[in-house]
């Protein structure tokens, strides 16, 4: 059974069909990339999985569970974490506090215990902190631990958002354009991290990305979308060479140029 499965999902905004009868399956342990021109419905797929949008028809399951029966805030409890295309961090909090929010689904103490700061709360805080420190070490965020998000450069924020998602120890990680706006070195780091996340942490990754270089290097399977429909699916090389994909990006069939490098 696939970890995440969308079957025949359709979503409409008024008269606009954002996702049309889309089916896809993400297998446990793989890196699955969604590509496609702007407005193809890639982020919309993420928002469907996060339950921010409810499809008009179709089914979405995660590890056999029906996601459509859950509220958005219940989705992370299953082990789904995500990042956002336009970074959505908690601006006024420090990096550490942001990452600790990632631990929210693992909290055990009640409000009453917290009000009196009982030993149980202290023990829990220590555990959360330990888990978060591991993420900080993994992502080299030590210098920024106590810095407020509001003053951090874009590249660091992007990493913090990845860290916040990782802190929740998810089974499935949704990355919405992890490399957009990053420098060449930062993109390089991101690539290694994604590879490590899959290999060493055993987390399944699903990502939306425009940088075909990155997609080609880290992903096992790629699904190309256009206008909310499936164009092609396969290995990165297969998808890049697919005539329908090239046509969708360039309007007409113009082979060699689209292969490799950045598209869109």
């Amino acid at each position, binding site marked *: 059974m696939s970890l995440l499965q969308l079957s025949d999902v359709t979503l409409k905004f008024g008269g606009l069909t954002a996702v049309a009868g889309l089916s896809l399956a993400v297998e446990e342990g793989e890196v699955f990339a969604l590509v496609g021109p702007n407005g193809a419905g890639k982020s919309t797929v993420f928002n469907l999985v996060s339950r921010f949008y409810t499809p008009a028809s179709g089914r979405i399951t995660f590890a056999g569970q029906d996601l459509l029966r859950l*509220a958005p805030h219940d989705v992370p409890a299953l082990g789904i974490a995500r990042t956002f295309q336009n970074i959505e961090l908690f601006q*006024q*909090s420090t990096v550490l506090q942001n990452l600790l929010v990632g631990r929210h*689904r693992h909290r055990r103490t009640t409000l009453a215990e*917290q009000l009196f700061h009982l030993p149980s709360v202290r023990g829990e805080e220590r555990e959360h902190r330990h888990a978060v420190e591991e993420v900080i070490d993994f992502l080299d965020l030590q210098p920024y631990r106590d810095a407020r998000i509001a003053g951090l450069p874009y590249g660091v924020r992007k990493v913090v958002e990845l860290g916040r998602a990782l802190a929740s120890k998810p089974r499935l990680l949704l990355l919405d354009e992890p490399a957009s706006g990053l420098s060449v070195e930062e993109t390089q780091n991101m690539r290694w991290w994604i590879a490590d996340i899959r290999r060493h942490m055993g987390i399944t990754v699903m990502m939306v990305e425009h940088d075909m270089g990155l997609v080609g290097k880290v992903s096992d399977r790629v699904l190309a979308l256009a206008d909310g429909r499936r164009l092609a699916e396969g290995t990165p090389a297969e998808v890049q060479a697919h005539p329908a994909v090239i046509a969708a990006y360039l309007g007409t069939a113009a082979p060699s140029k689209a292969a490799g490098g950045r598209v869109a």
Partner: protein
Amino acid sequence: MRFQFKTSYEQDIRLFEDRRQAARYALLLALAVALPFLIDDYFLGEATNVLIWAIAGLGLMLLTGQAGQVSLGHSAFMALGCYACVLMMNAGVSFVLAFPLAGIVTGLAGALIAIPAMKLHGVYLAIATLALAILADDIIVLTAPWTGGVAGLYAPPIDILGVTVDRWSTPDLYWWMVLAVAVLVTLAYVNILRSATGRAFAAVRDSEISAQAMGVNVARTKTIAFGLSCAITGLGGALMGLFAGAFNNETFTFLISIQLVMMIVVGGLGFIQGAFLGAVVIAFLPQALSLATDALGRGVAIPGLEAGVFGALLIAFVLFEPTGLWGRWLKIKTWLELFPFARRDMFRRQRSYLKTERLR
């Protein structure tokens, strides 16, 4: 600038950063305890008043500063706390029991009201709570058989385990009682801030969408914030009513709510210290103004001057120092510590572009 070398996670979980900070606050507390021996009864009464405002302000601070929700209706919850406490005391419940119960009742009422209200965004919530504050007046009149309506109620004597605490005959006891409440409330506040709930508050304040994506139940978090906030403000209201000696439907008007809002903004949104500083400003501004008008030789009070100056002060703070007095102090402190190496842009406000709250 002092750098802290942290060696264990405990250091970030503890109440105070380091010994120095702990010592400073211990000194402050000692000073507060010794206050009755340092100043006369009139000023002690004023100080008690400041502290009561600060307690009520802490309640609103938790909601607005921490969870980012505006309430213009906290005067209604002050009224509820006050009436609940006094009615219980009149029914023979001892103050020691009636007082915390009043807080709990107000908190529960707040949470109950929050359940529908918290589905509302910024503006709607502000208006709904404003309506609540205005309704409180009418409801008190309509329930006159219990509340005394326009005639009001007299505060019964406070009796703590056989000791009578009275504003006039034992002002020092009264001060210590209010101080104890303030310390306990502050502790509870800090405890919430350093727990998962406190982080959930900040998450909801800064980005509801990503709070949800991290598993924070936004509606529930807001309801908790509202309930806790109302409980604390209710305690403040109970103390205020008891301190005043008598109160009626017009004691807790919606202007009190607005004064609370001003207080926390001027003091510093999001800082516990801000609630206390704001209370000092709110309590002493009228005095300062009357001194100023006297000095100008007018001798006659200018009607509405107080409200006008409050308004102008508030505008100035929102525009030029949105972090309030405490935020300003933190900046000054950093500047002094770094002297002469502070750079201007260290304190520059981050400009963020319009993030629509409108649903579309």
